[in-house]
């Protein structure tokens, strides 16, 4: 199978998955007990007003018409309006995205900065104290809920260093330093568990690579140890680590949502939780679809990236 056909096939599959997700969300939201029109107008609205709002929302149409309209809107990027504020869902989500993306990206960066060196040290000093220390810390990281790390950071670093604000969010447009100072604690809380996972992955993948024939060859050629480790070893060892990036996203999401609550960040997580509490279903369903789309295409991207840096992988064969 040629590369273009493979990419096209995978993209179509990804679109199919998104389509099924959107349909599931459509069905799920329609099975929520209660009438959205009544929710908008409040409990004591009269029947005429409710009928008017139902007509406006298209709820008086047959189900297949509603479905077709919903899919049509979705394809054009229209996710509907918030029940309470009337704002377009898409703009609410975009508005809440910056803090969340900041925490996520800084968190991943922190995780990688800690984990890759820790994993390399762990592998090259196998069964020595450095390895045990790195392994112990990594396991601790994997075992802590992000929001709890957040609380601990808040109580320790947050109170000890007044220069680090422990509440809210400063947009990046107000300067890199205030932004970073505000993001660093939540990002660390989100990043540490992932640092744990990546450390363990880097270690095992590095150990495997260190035992490969080409490493022996490189040593036999008399190459300097540094070149062997970084050029021959690390490059190959990081391949499987890259694939985790897609999986990481799912894990990060739960962490970020909870950490936003700890630090009072008005991000995507808070929007989501608030909307559930207020039963603002258009926002909930829009968020679910947006996250699924990011999720599916991120995974596709990682797969293609992995394939392009590892020529041994054949297109099409999964097993």
């Amino acid at each position, binding site marked *: 199978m040629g590369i273009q056909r493979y990419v096209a096939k995978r993209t179509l*599959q990804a679109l*199919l*998955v*998104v389509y*099924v*997700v959107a349909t*599931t*969300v459509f069905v*799920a*939201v329609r*099975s*929520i007990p209660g009438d959205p029109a009544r929710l908008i107008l409040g409990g004591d609205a009269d029947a005429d007003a409710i009928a008017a709002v139902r007509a406006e929302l298209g709820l008086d149409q047959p189900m297949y018409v509603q479905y077709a309209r919903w899919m049509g809107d979705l394809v054009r990027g229209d996710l509907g309006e918030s029940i309470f504020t009337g704002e377009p869902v898409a703009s609410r989500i975009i508005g809440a995205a910056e803090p969340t993306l900041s925490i996520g990206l800084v968190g991943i960066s922190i995780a990688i900065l800690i984990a890759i060196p820790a994993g390399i040290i762990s592998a090259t000093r196998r069964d020595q104290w450095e390895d045990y220390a790195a392994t112990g810390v*990594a*396991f*601790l990281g*994997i*075992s*802590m*809920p*992000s*929001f*709890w790390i957040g*609380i*601990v950071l*808040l*109580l320790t670093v947050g109170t000890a260093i007044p220069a680090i604000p422990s509440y809210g969010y400063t947009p990046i447009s107000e300067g890199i330093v205030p932004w970073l100072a505000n993001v660093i604690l939540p990002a660390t809380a989100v990043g540490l568990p992932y640092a*744990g*996972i990546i450390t*363990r*992955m880097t*270690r*095992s993948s590095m150990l495997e690579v260190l035992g490969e024939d080409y490493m022996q060859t490189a040593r036999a050629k008399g190459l300097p140890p540094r070149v062997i480790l970084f050029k021959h070893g690390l490059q190959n060892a990081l391949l*499987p680590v890259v694939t*985790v990036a897609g*999986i990481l*996203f*799912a894990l990060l*999401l*739960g*962490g970020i*949502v*909870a950490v936003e*609550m*700890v630090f009072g960040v008005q991000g995507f997580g808070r929007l*989501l*939780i608030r909307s*559930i*509490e207020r*039963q603002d*279903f258009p926002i*909930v369903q829009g*968020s*679910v679809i947006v*996250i*699924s789309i990011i*999720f*599916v295409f991120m995974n596709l991207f990682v797969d293609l990236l992995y394939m392009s840096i590892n020529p041994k992988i054949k297109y099409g064969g999964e*097993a």
Partner: protein
Amino acid sequence: MGADYGGYGSDDTTRLFGVRLDRFDRLRETLTGDYKATFGLTTVILFVLAAIFAPELAPFDPMAQEYAIMQAPSLSSAHPFGTDSFGRDLLSRMMYGARISLGVSLVAVTIGAVVGIGLGLVAGYFGGVVDDALMRFVDVLWAFPWLLIAIMLVAVFGQGVWNVIAAIAFAYIDDFARLARGEVLSIREEEFVLAAKNIGLSDTRIMIEEVLPNAVAPLIVQFTVLVARAMLAESTLSFLGIGVKPTTPTWGALLGQGRSLIGQAWWISIIPGIAIVVTVLGINLFGDALRDAFDVRGEEGSP
């Protein structure tokens, strides 16, 4: 791997679900010498016992409110872990909370495992169109991160233990399905499977008695790792207030209630967190020791 792994024949070894128990002797030897396994298993057993015997062991009624001692600090004489904002004993609440936190995770991962392994087994064994269809279905499941499944279930059905269990179980089906399928693909061409087909055993019997026992090691490791992760997921949902009912004292919910009191009563949010960390760490270490003992090659800490 030889023909003697087959689920029939005249050997008289003890079997459990078609798995020869003498295969676990080596495992037991490896585990008893491993500090990770010892620590992990001991911790988990202690917490499980505390959960089971909560009614006998808990010093106080977890719901009893004592307004005279609201937010009593930890290590105060009668309340080793202090009290919450209603004067309820935190230790007792945590012991009862352990029942929910451990129970929900175990049940959820078991359901995910049964469904996922079933799907993976059938997909891998039959291959072709069946494989394609089932794995596309698994792809769709995978596209819903657990948090979103939980959110949708809460939106549609309201809060409750079974919604949390369903959300976590759903989210882990794809992990088990992919792993089981991968194992089956490498096993199904083995001679003993072909032999079983030649003597006319039914597909169901071959899958359950021949293929599954040989794929069991990585699945057990996966199970352990996911129970640890399920506990974190459950605590996150409870913390966010979309888990089990807010009045139920799960570890995550206790933490969530302590959040607004961080300034006055730090122990309410710190101590239940330590319980979560120690338990999850115990399970993770035990899982890692199992991975070493079974000699399962695979990604560390990732599904």
